[in-house]
């Protein structure tokens, strides 16, 4: 009774090295190539994602540029007189870049990656927003809301005191 077991198939095959196997791989099957192929695919994927992120980051960085044109057009529409419409547009032109600048980190958060260099898009984004801000300030100035003229500083200057005093007129009749 020494050999009750005639054959068995070991399903649990934990080893990956073929040297430890006693059974040969079926012909046409190369274990190594498969393993090699797998790692290449994942690497490719990662690269693509990084590329995509970079691309997106650039896109986001360039987004204010389109906005700039839009803003400029709106400003031209508003004219140079101070009223509700022009003030509204100007202030939105000022607030938008400021808000954008405050949230630079947040805007680029989804594109954060070890392999992606976000500095350049960030700089571009900041620069474009600064241009937008400049445009807003320029608009503010053209509306005459910035104290850059002499008139802004003297308009409430009281008249000077006079040293002499003179009175009189036609003698009372």
């Amino acid at each position, binding site marked *: 009774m020494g050999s009750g077991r005639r054959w068995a198939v070991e399903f649990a095959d934990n080893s990956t090295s073929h040297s430890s196997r006693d059974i040969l791989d079926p012909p046409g099957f190369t274990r190594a190539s498969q393993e090699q192929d797998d790692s290449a695919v994942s690497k490719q994927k990662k690269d693509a994602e990084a590329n995509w992120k970079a691309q997106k980051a650039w896109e986001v960085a360039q987004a204010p540029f389109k906005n700039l044109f839009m803003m400029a057009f709106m400003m031209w*529409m*508003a*004219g140079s*007189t101070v*009223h*509700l*419409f022009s003030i509204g547009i100007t202030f939105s032109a000022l607030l938008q870049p400021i808000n954008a600048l405050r949230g630079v980190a947040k805007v680029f958060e989804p594109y954060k990656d070890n392999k992606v260099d976000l500095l350049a898009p960030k700089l571009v984004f900041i620069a474009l927003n600064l241009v937008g801000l400049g445009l807003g300030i320029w608009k503010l100035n053209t509306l*005459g809301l910035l104290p*850059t*003229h*002499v*008139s*802004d*500083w*003297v*308009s*409430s*200057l*009281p*008249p*000077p*005191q*006079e*040293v*002499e*005093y*003179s*009175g*009189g*007129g*036609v*003698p*009372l*009749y």
Partner: protein
Amino acid sequence: MNMAIRAFLLLLLFFASSNPAYSLYEDQVGLMDWHQQYIGKVKHAVFHTQKAARKRVIVSTEENVVASLDLRHGEIFWRHVLGPNDVIDQIDVALGKYVITLSSGGSVLRAWNLPDGQMVWESTLIGSTPSKPLLLIPTNLKVDKDNLIFVYGNGFIHAVASIDGEVIWKKELASEGIDVQQLIYPDGSEIIYAVGLLGFSRFDAYQLNVKSGELLKHNNMLFPAGFSGDLSVVTDDTAVALDSTGKILVVIRFQDGKISFHQTHVSQLIEDISGAAVILPSKIPGMFTLKIDASVIFIEVINESKLKVVHKIGHANAVSDALSLPEDQQAVALIQHGDGKILLTVKLGNDWTSNLIEETIQMDRQRGLVHKVFINSYVRTDRSNGFRVLIVMEDHSLLLLQQGEIVWSREDGLASVIDVKASELSVEKDGVSVAKVEHSLFEWLKGHLLKLKGTLMIATPDDVVAIQKIRLQSSEKGKMTRDHNGFRKLLIVLTRAGKLFALHTGDGRIVWSRLLNSLRKSETCENPRGISLHQWQDPHHHALDENPSVLVFGRCGYNSDSAGVLSIVDTYTGEERNHIGPLHSIAHIIPLPFTDSMEQRLHLLVDANRHAHLYPRTAEALGIFQRELGNIFWYAAETDKGILRGYGVQKNCVLEVADDFCFDTRDLWSIVFPSESEKIAATATRSLNEVVHTQAKVTADQEVMYKYISKNLLFLATVAPKAIGPIGSVTPDESSLVVYVIDTVTGRILHRMTHHGSQGPVKAVVSENWIVYHYFNLRAHRYEMSVIEIYDQARAENKDVLKLVLGTHNLTSPITAYSRPEVFTKSQSYFFAHSVKTMAVTLTAKGITSKQVLLGTIGDQVLALDKRFLDPRRTVNPTQAEKEEGIIPLTDSLPIIPQSYVTHALKVEGLRGIATIPAKLESTTLVFAYGVDLFFTRLAPSRTYDSLTEDFSYALLLITIVALIVAIFVTWVWSEKKELQEKWR
């Protein structure tokens, strides 16, 4: 989209730049304005009480007003104000339905319909020599079914048909130089007598046929001793005159062409007299009145030439003309003064021993003496005669007395306002009772609920009436305390009668009135009259427990060197704190820009000898004045000589009696205008209390122009001497108008401009750095208005923003007139449709609000004209930027917008002046226009940008807020419930 935005922007621009209208709605009339009608001091009064219809009295006044007053209440039925040159000489009633007025020295005769005051006819009676105007309306003289009116004026006697004013005949009587004194028409005869004097020594009597004017007889008789001038006609054929010495009475009889004189020595009639006698004008048949020393004597002429003294009273009393009663009797009213009361007696003309009526009436001391009495009778229920008298007081007020009572009184002194000053009311005291607050709260709520109804248009007609009543009679308006906005003030008004009134700006009522002691006739001051009013003490910072006061300045007599009188009057109570005088003559009053520790303003009074006297006379004031001595100057425009002189104030003057408060003046400069081509026509200076907010004017392109603002600017206009007369008296080539802007410290002419072919009258106002003046352009046959704006060139260099930011500029450092100002001016002229009586400019508390020029038009209305229309920077086609700045495209004439009449539908008859007073609220200015009428209103030249409008519905706001809070609460509860239900599901 593009189009839509553009259209939207254009619409916005339109709203932003559209002309603001200053008109008010119909229901706003009387909310903040009031109008009072007066007539002036009554000269003549004719009663019209025969008919059972409305009883009235027709009066003519010294303000040239003819009016019909309701005898029951003293209200004006109708009123006409004749021009200032059309002085009313006589009035009477003809045919029982026409009021006849004779005016302009007997050359204009008019008939007015008695019930409604419509003019029926007007006749111009032409003559050559000016003479005493006389009017005689016989009651029952009919010529060709027509009643005649006899008028003597300008040397001619005219018979005028009373029905249409046609001159039936006229005859010259003054050809020899006879001064006709009286027309006499004996009832029922065919002859009219005209009696007069020639050269004080000949008595002349004419007899004329009433129907044809044919001269029937002309008798005269010489009186070698000479007459004193006045003639009193006693009966139809007797007159009384005084000889040239005033000691002998001459009874003149002129019956049937024979003239005879009977002389009686006055001392034979009256014992112990000293002075000369004067005949007073009176109309009592058979009697005349004589004034000797301090008494008035009634003398009757009996038995053709005998004289008999009937009665004797003190001279300060008043006597009426005789009133004919039925049964050939005459009644005369006499008024005597008592202590705080007057005594009225009515006597029968032919029996002076007994009185028909003797009444004592309490009289306000502030009304002074009785000046005139007019008597009228009525039939009592017991068929006896009752009497009513109309009296004119020293303060020009008019009172009706009947049965010992004052039936009504009119404050007609207010028709002759000389000067106005505003005074603050007292500050509100703390501690208002709770009940009052509750009551007022309830009233407040009720009022607002009504208003709300009005806003929501659910008010019934009764409610509308109630709303209007609440608005008009707002208790806030007439309060005697200061308000937050500074709308409630006292207007201190000086009248020609020498009476000071305080009017409340809220409703125009008289708060107090006072007949000034200094302006009453006295032995030392024979002919006192008020000249001007000045702010004396106006506590704002210190001495707050002191009441504010005004300085009243008057003069005894009509010459520039007659003595002056001063009074200081408390404006809260009307008490005369102090009166000084008579003292030195006063030619100029110069309020100085300094106050002492009691906030009394220093005044410099310059007399005719050019000595300057300082008031108040305290050591402190002297100290302040001496510190500033070198910086005080004064100038005088001598219009008759055509010289403008400037003076400085020097050390104390050398007088017999040392006076520390008297200072010598020295000549500094003079400007002599060529007498053959220029005569001073008008001067104008800036108002002393005008506040200017800023020295810079910012133009649309952000550029700055610095205004030349000086308190020492004088605008002076001269016209060619030929062109002094009325418009049309000279050709354009002969006339020119020259305007000067002069610095009165140095005498430097800053600007000079000639308007060729223009002439006066010139009216001007100066404000901030601009001058607006009005004159007549002979070439264009139109009135013109010009504006001059003065800018400082020297300051224009201040362009460095950094310096201005850091404040290292010298724009606000004190400046001196000796530092050679470099100025440039801009000016522009426009046609203007109206002639202008007076001009003023709005004043506001801080000087930020834009200005309006107020014009008193010839139609006695006040027109507000925006300064924007008078801007020398106006061009025909302003650029977009200039339009945004508010520059109006240039037009050749100034527009008159009907809505900009400040007086809306009312007229300020006989408009003489406009005073503007700043309110505490910056946007608002108070305007007071005075003439025969008074008008007061509030103006907001840039609209009330700093307060909610009067009809703002606080209740609506409150209700809205409450409703919103309730809604929030309800929805919250609701949502909570719903959420809970959701959770249970």
